[in-house]
C-alpha cells in the first residue's frame, strides 16, 4: 500500500465521519427553514448519536448475532466506501482499485446487512422493510452499472479516480450530454439507494409507508447508532461522489497538505450545495407509491441507456 493513498484514505474517512452527521443536520435544517420552523440545529445528529452510543441496547428473544453484527457491518461498509470513493482527492491505492463495481458491491454489502437486521427482528415490519429495500436495490443496480458504463466509455476505465481525474483535467466534459444524462440517472439511483424522497420518506412514522425505518424498528441503543451512522455515511459518500463527478474542481490529484486542505474545503462546499439542494427539492415532492417506484427507476435506467447511446453518437463528433 502506498503512503499517499493511505494518508488520503484516512483523511477522507475522518472528514466523512465528522461531516456526514452534520450533512444530515444541514438537510433537516434546510427543510425546517423552508417549512417555517427553527429546526434542531446542525449538530443535532451528533447529539443523537452520542446518546444512542451510551444508551442501553436491547435484544429480543429469537434474534441472533445478526442483529448485533449487522449494524457494525453497515458502518464498516459506509467507511469503506469513504475510503474507496474519490471525495477529497483522486489518488487510488495501487492494489485496491476504486473500481465502481467494487464500490457498488461494498455498498450492497451494507444494504444486505441492514436487510438481515430487519429480517432477524422476526416482526412483520422488519420483513416488510427488508423486502421493499431489496426490491428497490435490485432494480437500482442496472441503472447504476449502465450509468457507470456510460461514464467509463470516454475514459476507458471504470475506476472512479480515473473518471474524476479526467474531469479535473477537462472540466468542459462535465457539460456534455453523455455526462449529464448519466449523472441524472446516477442521482436518481443515489436517491433510491439512500432512501430519500420520493422513494422513501426518512421522517415517516407510518409503518406501512416505511422502507428504511421499518428495518431498524427493532434496533435500540448503539445498534441503532451504528445503523444510522452507516446510512449517514452512505448518504454523505454518495452525495460526495456525485459532487466529485458534477463539480470536479478542488479534488486533490496529489497528496500535499495544501491540496488536501483545498480538497476538504471543496468537499464541504459540494456537500453543502448538494445536500441543501436535495433537502430543498424534497420539500416539494411527495413519496411515491411503492409500485410507482419501478417507473422512476425505469426512467433513470432509460436515461442511463441514453447516455451510453449518446456517448457513441456524440463523443467523436467533438
Amino acid at each position, binding site marked *: 500500500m502506498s503512503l499517499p493513498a493511505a494518508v488520503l484514505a484516512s483523511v477522507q474517512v475522518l472528514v466523512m465521519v465528522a461531516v456526514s452527521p452534520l450533512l444530515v443536520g444541514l438537510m433537516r435544517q434546510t427543510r*425546517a*427553514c*423552508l*417549512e*417555517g*420552523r*427553527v*429546526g*434542531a*440545529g446542525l449538530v*443535532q445528529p451528533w*447529539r*443523537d448519536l*452520542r*446518546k444512542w452510543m*451510551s*444508551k*442501553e*441496547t*436491547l435484544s429480543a428473544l429469537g434474534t441472533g448475532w445478526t442483529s448485533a453484527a449487522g449494524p457494525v457491518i453497515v458502518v464498516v461498509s459506509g467507511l469503506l466506501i469513504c475510503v474507496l470513493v474519490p471525495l477529497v482527492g483522486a489518488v487510488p491505492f495501487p492494489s485496491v482499485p476504486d473500481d465502481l463495481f467494487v464500490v457498488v458491491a461494498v455498498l450492497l454489502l451494507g444494504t444486505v446487512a441492514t436487510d438481515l437486521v430487519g429480517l432477524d427482528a422476526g416482526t412483520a415490519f422488519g420483513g416488510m422493510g427488508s423486502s421493499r429495500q431489496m426490491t428497490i436495490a435490485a432494480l437500482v443496480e442496472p441503472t447504476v452499472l449502465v450509468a457507470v458504463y456510460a461514464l467509463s466509455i470516454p475514459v476507458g476505465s471504470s475506476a472512479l479516480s480515473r473518471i474524476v481525474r479526467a474531469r479535473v483535467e477537462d472540466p468542459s466534459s462535465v457539460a456534455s450530454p453523455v455526462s449529464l444524462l448519466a449523472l441524472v440517472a446516477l442521482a436518481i439511483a443515489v436517491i433510491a439507494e439512500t432512501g430519500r424522497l420520493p422513494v422513501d420518506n426518512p421522517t*415517516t*412514522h407510518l*409503518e406501512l409507508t*416505511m422502507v428504511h*425505518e421499518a428495518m*431498524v*424498528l*427493532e*434496533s*435500540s*441503543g448503539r445498534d*441503532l447508532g451504528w445503523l444510522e451512522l452507516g446510512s449517514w455515511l452512505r448518504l454523505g459518500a454518495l452525495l460526495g461522489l456525485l459532487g466529485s463527478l458534477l463539480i470536479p474542481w478542488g479534488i486533490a490529484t496529489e497528496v500535499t497538505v495544501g491540496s488536501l486542505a483545498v480538497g476538504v474545503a471543496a468537499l464541504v462546499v459540494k456537500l453543502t450545495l448538494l445536500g441543501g439542494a436535495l433537502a430543498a427539492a424534497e420539500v*416539494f415532492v411527495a413519496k411515491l407509491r411503492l409500485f410507482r417506484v419501478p417507473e422512476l427507476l425505469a426512467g433513470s435506467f432509460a436515461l442511463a441507456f441514453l447516455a451510453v447511446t449518446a456517448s457513441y453518437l456524440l463523443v467523436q463528433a467533438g
Partner: protein
Amino acid sequence: MSLRRLVRLMLTAGRIADAAPPLPEAAPGRPPLLAGSLHVRHVDAGSCNGCEIEVGAAFGPVYDAERYGARLVASPRHGDAVLVTGVVTRNMLEPLRRTVAAMPEPRMVLAVGDCACSCGVFRGAIGVAGAAGDVVDVDLEVPGCPPEPGAIVEALRRVTGR
C-alpha cells in the same frame, strides 16, 4: 398546491415559529444522557383526541418542539420517553406496559393531560383501568384538559435542557 404558490408562501411566511420562551428549570432526576436529544414515543392510552391535537401542535411549526431537541419516533426501541395521553383503558393497559418495557434505559414517562395524570372526567368510568401513574412510573406530569402546546413544550424542555 402548485409549485409557484408553494414557493411564494414560503417566501412570504418566512419563519412561523414563536420566539423561544425562557428556559424552564430542569426536571428533578432527569437522566443527564437525555440532555439535548429526547426521542418521544407517543401512546394514546384512551384519550378523547384533544391531547393528540395539542401534542401535534407542540411539534408543529409554531411551537416547534424539535428545536429543543425533542422528536417523535416510530418505535419505543428508538425512544427515550413515553408520552402518555388519556386515561388508561383496560384494552390499552398491557400495550402501555409493554411500550414502557420495550424502551431501553434510561427512559422517562410523561403523562400529558388531566386524564393521564388523574383520570380527569373519566374517573371511575366503565372500562377505565386508571391513570398512567397507576400502571407505570410517571416521571413528569403536564396537567390541563387539554394542556396547552406551550406547556407540553415546556415539559419537554425541562428534560432536554435546551
